[in-house]
Structures are given as C-alpha cells and as structure tokens.
C-alpha cells in the first residue's frame, strides 16, 4: 500500500448495500463504510459479512477502527447489519446520516414519525390479510400479498440497528446530519484528511422532495385504519335500522354480481400503492454524497430517487461536478428510476467504474433493470455486479469468492 490509492470493496450481502472504502492519501489512511444491511441473504449471512468488515477495518494494533460510517437511509437493506453487538468494539470517529434522522429537528421528527407509523400500519394490515388468506388457503401462497409484505417489511424500523447508529460504537463518535441547511456546510473536508473533499447532494430540503417523504396518501391511509377495524368495512355509515336485509328489486337488478364484486374490492390495491409510496418516501431520504480525492470523484447516491436527482441535475454547478464522476455506486440496486436517463446519457462521461450491489428477488423482476446496466455498459466496460462475481472484468476488479468484489483506484499525484 505504498502509492496513494482508493480501495472500494463491495461486499456481497445479497439484496442490500455494504461498501467499505479505504483511502490512502498524503500519508494518511481514511476508512469509510457506506451502509451495511440486507433483506435477502447472499452466499453468507449478514452476520458473517459484519465480521468480515470489522476484520478488514483492523489496524496494526488489532483494534477495529472506522473513521466514518455513513448510513444513507434507514431501510432494512441498508442498516440491518448494524444491529450486531460486535459493533460495540469498533472505534468510530463520525457517523453521517440524512437530516431526517436528526433527533433535534422537529421537521425531521415529523417525517420519521409519519413514515414509521405508516410502515407499522401497513405491516399489521398485511399480516392480518395474510392470516385471513392462510386460514382459507393453507397450502397455497398468495404471491401478491407476499410481494407487498416484503416491500412493506423493508420500511419497518429496525430499532436495534438505528440505536447503534445513533448511540452505539466505541470511541464516542460524533453524529452529523446532512444537509445541514447551511449551504456552506454542504462542501467540507473529511475528518482525518484534508485531501478528501465531500459534497452533499441530497436529500434535498426542497418542498416537493419533502412532500414525497411524507406522502399525503399515507396520512389518509393511516386515518382510514386508525382505530377502525378494517375487516368490518371500516366504519358504519348509518344506524342499523337503515340496513336492508334483502336487495331492493327496484335497483339491485342494475348491479350485476361481477359489478358487485368489483365494488367490493375497491381498495384492494391500496396496500401495494401505499407500500410503494412509502418505499419511495424512505428512499427519498437517502444521503447522496460525492467524494473528491485528487482527480477521482466517487458518487454514492444511496437509493436516492428522482426528486433528489432532479434537484442535483438542475443545479448547473452540481451538474458540472456530476459530470466528473469516476466511480458510481449504482443507486437502489440497479432499479430503473434511481439512475435517471439524463444522468447516464448526458452527464456521465466514458471514464468511470460502476458497481451494483444487487440480487434477484422473485417478486421484483425489474431490479436490477437490465436496460440500465446495458446502457452503462455501453459507456464503460468497468462494471461489476455483486450477483455476478465471475463477470467482473479483471484487472480492474478483484474478486474474493462469495465475499466481495473490490477495485483499487490509483491516485495519480
């Protein structure tokens, strides 16, 4: 490790993110960890991956130290690994999280509360429906319900992990929340080394992006199921003596049984729609960072969605910076709308590395989006994906079978 270089190591966690970054520059070493979580295990369970990371972060005195832990957002597949008690022994200098995690920010608290309430309501509602289904279909699975259940489960707060991020680790780390609201703080030098410059692109504090973080449809949903037993149709609109025991012949002939079935099933899609809206909401809180070290520009967008990207691409100065990207951690496991077409076609140059931490989930055939990976592939050969280790082109990428894929990026002085 003599020459200046950056090591980016993408651990294979299955469906999730865990990126270990080691920067050797100007005689110092800066270690960073971007997320650590999974909702579907890879070749090794997340517990083992955590051990690997902690091992890799060991200094010569055998104490594990990480300078900065970045938790881009609180989705399970990005934080579940932090629930492990092994982290208590790791010395951390700083923990970076999006501003929506700030316990002292009332706007942040409102968004967090809203999101967790919605996640809890969705989860319990789906659970109830699953139980009802299982009661009448003991051997069959309902793929629709399972899909929604998985989507909703990702958003349910992982309390142990969040607690570790906010209060755990050794070395009494400083917790920092970005963006701070003060524009000057959005570009700063990383701790340990002045040579590492950090740009914060998101999450935006723009009104529209915030609205996406706390969707009104979610509030509506919460209200619908707040204190009302949805199984019994929610609420009684009229007193019992208005209810008709038999269908009134004057009008009932106009409503066929298929019509009736359709009316009865209004709201059946609501869970799926809300789960997706919540998914987008939490993804929207993703911390989007650009690290500038020497001539290298590393972009880590977390799972940032269109709102954050749009704000970044519309700012002419930020767009200039994005054009310099030399390493791109492909957003949201390679999904379609976490990497805008505009970014791929008109912003990215041709000289960059890209890595995607992803894995196939049956109910989500569109993740990763093959067309996106193809489009990136047209611009550069240097792409690696965690679920296809063997295809990672050497010598750019080194593979440790079933453990990680890493790239060592030299820093030209």
């Amino acid at each position, binding site marked *: 490790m003599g020459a200046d270089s950056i090591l980016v190591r993408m651990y294979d966690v299955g469906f999730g993110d865990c990126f270990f970054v080691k920067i050797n520059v100007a005689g110092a070493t800066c270690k960073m960890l971007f997320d650590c979580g999974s909702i579907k295990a890879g070749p090794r369970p997340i517990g083992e991956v955590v051990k690997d990371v902690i091992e890799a972060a060991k200094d010569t005195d055998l104490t594990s130290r990480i300078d900065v832990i970045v938790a881009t957002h609180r989705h399970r597949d990005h934080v579940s690994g932090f629930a492990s008690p092994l982290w208590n022994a790791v010395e951390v200098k700083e923990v970076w999280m999006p501003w929506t995690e700030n316990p002292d920010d009332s706007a942040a608290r409102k968004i967090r509360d809203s999101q967790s309430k919605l996640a809890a309501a969705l989860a319990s509602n789906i659970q109830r429906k699953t139980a009802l289904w299982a009661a009448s279909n003991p051997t069959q699975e309902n793929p629709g319900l399972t899909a929604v259940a998985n989507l909703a489960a990702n958003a349910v707060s992982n309390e142990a992990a969040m607690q570790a991020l906010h209060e755990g680790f050794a070395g009494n780390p400083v917790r920092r929340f970005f963006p701070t609201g003060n524009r000057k703080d959005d570009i700063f030098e990383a701790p340990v080394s002045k040579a590492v410059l950090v740009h914060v692109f998101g999450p935006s504090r723009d009104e529209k992006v915030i609205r996406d973080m706390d969707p009104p*449809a979610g509030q509506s949903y919460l*209200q619908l199921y707040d204190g009302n037993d949805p199984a*019994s149709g929610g609420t009684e609109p009229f007193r019992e003596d208005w209810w008709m025991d038999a269908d009134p012949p*004057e*009008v009932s002939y106009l409503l066929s049984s298929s*019509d009736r079935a359709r009316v009865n099933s209004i709201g059946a899609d609501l869970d799926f729609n809300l789960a*997706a809206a919540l998914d987008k909401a939490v993804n929207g809180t993703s911390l989007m960072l650009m690290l500038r070290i020497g001539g290298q520009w590393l972009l880590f967008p977390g799972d940032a969605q269109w709102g954050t990207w749009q704000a970044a691409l519309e700012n002419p100065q930020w767009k200039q910076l994005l054009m310099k990207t030399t390493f791109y951690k492909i957003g949201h496991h390679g999904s379609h709308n976490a990497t805008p077409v505009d970014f791929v076609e008109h912003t990215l140059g041709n000289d960059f590395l890209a890595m995607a931490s992803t894995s196939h989930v049956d109910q989500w055939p569109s993740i990763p989006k093959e067309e996106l990976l193809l489009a990136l592939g047209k611009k550069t050969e240097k792409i690696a994906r965690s679920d296809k280790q063997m295809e990672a082109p050497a010598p750019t990428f080194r593979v440790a079978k079933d453990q990680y894929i890493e790239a060592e990026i030299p820093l030209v002085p």
Partner: protein
Amino acid sequence: MKRALSEYVTAPPARRPLKIFSTDPMLGRTAGNRITIDVANEGLNKGPAGRRVVVIDYDGGHSRFYPPVDLNDPAILMQGGLDPTESDPRFHQQMVYAVAMRTLENFDRALGRVIDFRKKEYQQLRLMPHAFYGANAFYDRDLHAILFGYFRADRNDPGQNLPGQNVFTCLSHDIIAHEMTHAVVDRLKRYFMEPTNEDVLAFHEGFSDIVALFQHFSFQEILRQQIQKSRSDLRSNTLLVELARQFGYATGAGKALRSALDKPEAKLYKTAYEPHERGSILVAAVFDAYFATYQRRIRDLIRIATGGTGELPKGDLHPDLVNRIAAEASATAQQILTMCMRAFDYLPPVDITFGDYLRALVTADYELVPNDEYGERGAMIEAFRLRGIYPENVASLAEESLLWENADPGISGIPLAGQDMLQELFFAAADFGNVSTPWVNWGQQSSATSRPTSSFPEADADMEITSTMAQILHGYAQQNRQYFHLSDDPGIKIEVHGFHPVFRVAPNGQLLIELVVQFAQTNRSFTTELGGLPLRGGTTLIASADGQIRYIISKPLPSANLSPAKKREAEARLDRQRTYLRLTDMADPKLSYYSPQDLLNRMRFRMNLASLHQGIS
C-alpha cells in the same frame, strides 16, 4: 276534448325542486347552506332512477343496500325533497341525483344537445353514494359509475368537523359535480383519459374543478351573503372559490381541498407535473378571466352606488346593490362556464393540451359572439398568457391568430343528401327541446336504427349514429384523407367517432346550427414503447348546416401522405408522448415492483382516476 283532460291540465310540470347542502354539511344551518335547486322533471323510479342517471345505494364495504328513495312520494314532493340530513341515506341519494342532474343540464344547455350515457351494457350512468370505505370518490369507466366513499374525520385535526365523525363524499356538491364532469368529458372525448402528454390528466382534473366551482355562483343566497361580506371583492372570500372544504378539513389538511386562486407565474406551468397541481393552473386562469370580466361588469353599478368616487360606504352594502351585483356575478359565471363547455366541440379527439383548449375557447366563442362585448375572450387569453400557456404553432396571442384555421372552401362538403341525415337532425332538434319529458321512443325506427351494428367496426359503438351514417362519413373521410390530415396507411383504419348537430342561440337571438364530426386513427405498433398506450391521431371537423366544412382541427399520425409541416407536427407528438412516459416513469414509486405484464401496461394503470384522486403518484 274536455279541458280537464287536455294537455294544459295533464302535462307534468317542467321542473322538480330538490334540497341539497350547497357547501358542506358541517356548516349546518348557516344561511344558504341548505338550499333548494331545481332539475328538469323526468319520470323517476325508486332509486332515484331516471333516464340518464340512476342512483344505486350499494355499500361495497358491507355488501348491503340502503333503501332507495321514491322522489315521487307525495310526502317528499310536498316538501320539495327531503330535508338535508347526514343520517338519512335517502337524502344522500336525493342530493347525488340532484347535483348530478344539475351538472348534466349545464352541459346540455352549453353544448346544445342532450348528453346521454347509453352504452352496450348499461343504459344509464350509475351513482353509488356509499360505495366504499375511503376518503375518495371517482368515476370508473368500466363500471360506468361514479363511486363515492365515506370515512371518519381525523381525530386529531378535524377542522370544523367532530373528531371521528362520519364524512360522506356524496354530500359534497363540489365532489359530485367534479366527478360528474369526469363522466361527461369521458363520454364526449373518450380518448382524453389516455395520458399522452402532461396536460391530458391535468385537463380532466382542472376542467372538473372549473365546473364545480362555477356552479357555486348559481347559489343565490350564498352569493349574496358572500358579496356582502367581501364588499364585492369576490377574490377575498373563501366559500365561493374553495372546493370541498369539509373533505379537506376532514382529512386533516387544515384547509379546503383546492382553491381557484393562485399567484400567476409562468414558471409553474413548466414545472408542475402532478395532474391536480397542473390542473389548478387551468382553473386559476379561467377564474382570472372571470374576475376580470365580473369587475368590468359591475363597474357601472359601483359608480352609481358611490356617485363616481368608487369608494363604497362603510358598513353593510345596500341590499339592492348586493342583489344587482349578485345578479351580475351569477350571469357572468354562467356565461364563462358555458363558454368553457362550448369549447368542447372545437377540440381535437385526442392528445389535448391547454393550448388546444385555449384555441377551442376562442374559436367557439368567436363563432357565437363575434364582437367580444365584455372582453371575456380577451380576459381569457390574457389569463392564459400570464401563466405561460401558449398554444403550439401559432404566430402570436392575438385573437385572430388563436382561431383554428379555416378550412379551404374548395373541400367538398359532408354528403347530406338523403333521408337519414335530415331525420337525424330533426330528431336531435326535437330531443334537445324536450329533455324534460319522460323518455319516449321516437317510434320504433329511431331506437332500432340509432345503435350502429357491430358489423361496422370502424364506428365507435357508443356513439349515437346510425350505421348508414357511419358508412357515409367513413367514405367521406377516406376520400378527403389528404385534407383532413388522416393517414393513408392501409393498416390503419379510420374510426368514425361521432357525428352530431349542435344548436346554439346567439345573444342576438339567432339560431346557429353546426355539424361536428370526429375521426380517429390508431397506430398500434408503438404500444409497447409507449407503456401500453397506442399512438392515436384524429381530426374534428366543424361544418355549417349545409355540410360545408369550416374548421379542421387535427392531430396527425406520422404518415407519408402528410405535408412536411404536418409530418413534423406528427413526429413531435410522438416524441412528446415518449418524453411524458419517461417523466412519469421517473416519478412512479411502483415502477420497480410491477410484474412484467403490468410493466407493459403501466400507462394504462396511470389512467386510473381512483388512484389519481387518492393522491398516489
């Protein structure tokens, strides 16, 4: 014949009075909240079930019915309808029927013909006042129904409702009128729900809000009250320009659902893509035009009342003054609303933009009232300009430039010679005049031939033309493809989408008769690329009563036989549809989670008004 048996004695009355809540039930017995409106008197069965609309009180959340009301019950007739109450489902049925019919009549009058909702499977549009548990209401094309939800007010932030009280969307005049408008627009222009550009769904939403809002101005008592309160400055008061207050408050939003007022900014039209947000720009533009015209019309009243100073005296305004101002406010509102509805016939059959709508507004109004006496047209153009809404392919925003192009007089007219055509016109005229009498089959002939047979696939089976007529029109379109900018690609058929005569009475008393024909074409080779929507083009023809074509309003499909300019236009349309698909994809939270089948049809899902109204985007 004995006088007692003659028509003078036995003819039913023309109007039926019915009571409704004019604003929101939560305002209780506030003056003007419980009012009586009247609708055309038609034969009604229990439900109420009329000729065009039927109320079916089925509760999908509980799989049960509530007793249908008989509005011809002497006890109910005697009172002019049941008294407004939240607890009696029969009043809800009455109110939904009354407001729906009121809205429909506005359209009839403005469009100069009777709109009906007959389809292959259904004879009438169904209204279901308590269809489901939810804070939502929507028109569903497949069910051919408007479904109203009910829910509980927010416990913590109920506004003026009781915490946790039942809130019925069917008791909101605004929501009923809004949804009814969706149904009518869908009936008049069935391709306007296919989101081919960022204005399409926004137009549906905005236009529905416009109708609901302007109908407020026909409620005399509220109007007078609000004029008094705001001292004639209607912009400063809320009841008239806000939509669905109870709904907004009940869902904890702390304010009404939407409002007609805005800060006009050209930037918003460039950046607002969510349909309600974008639709609000249209609403605000039309309201701007309304206020400007209204202010101009009451200027002389104010001058008289203030002796020329323009300063109204302190305290209450004189009731006579309030009445006169109210009359002006009401008349202007009706005029602008009629202008907005009339414009429909001057729209292309597909791919609407706000710019198209402005041109249609200007042209339709110009036809009827060539000299813009109160400056309504000018106000409209100015209001659109302020908000950055510019039609494509026009040289300037001068009125003359905004009119649709006149057709070349050399084009052969619609072949009217023949019995069918005259019969069609006559029955339509008679029907228009007699909407209030109970449904009568105009002889076996009319009902038997008024549905085109399915052996003629080009004709849209839901439109009211005979198959003979459809064939004639199809042949006519084929012959004149060149002039009508229709593609001559042999694989793309010409669909005849409607032919109707329109009767309008100009302010000078003159009767104007026009013929409107619509053709559409569908190119299915782009469907996968466009997320499940085919590429459509079409042309609306406006002709005078003798068949001479006056206007050709076209949205061309890319095809070889077009002029270069039209080719560019067609390509631009396709590009715009692609861009819009990309835009909605970026914003769609469900995009990554669709099944492969659903993914191919994702644009069809975005046509769904239920999820649009739920605010899920």
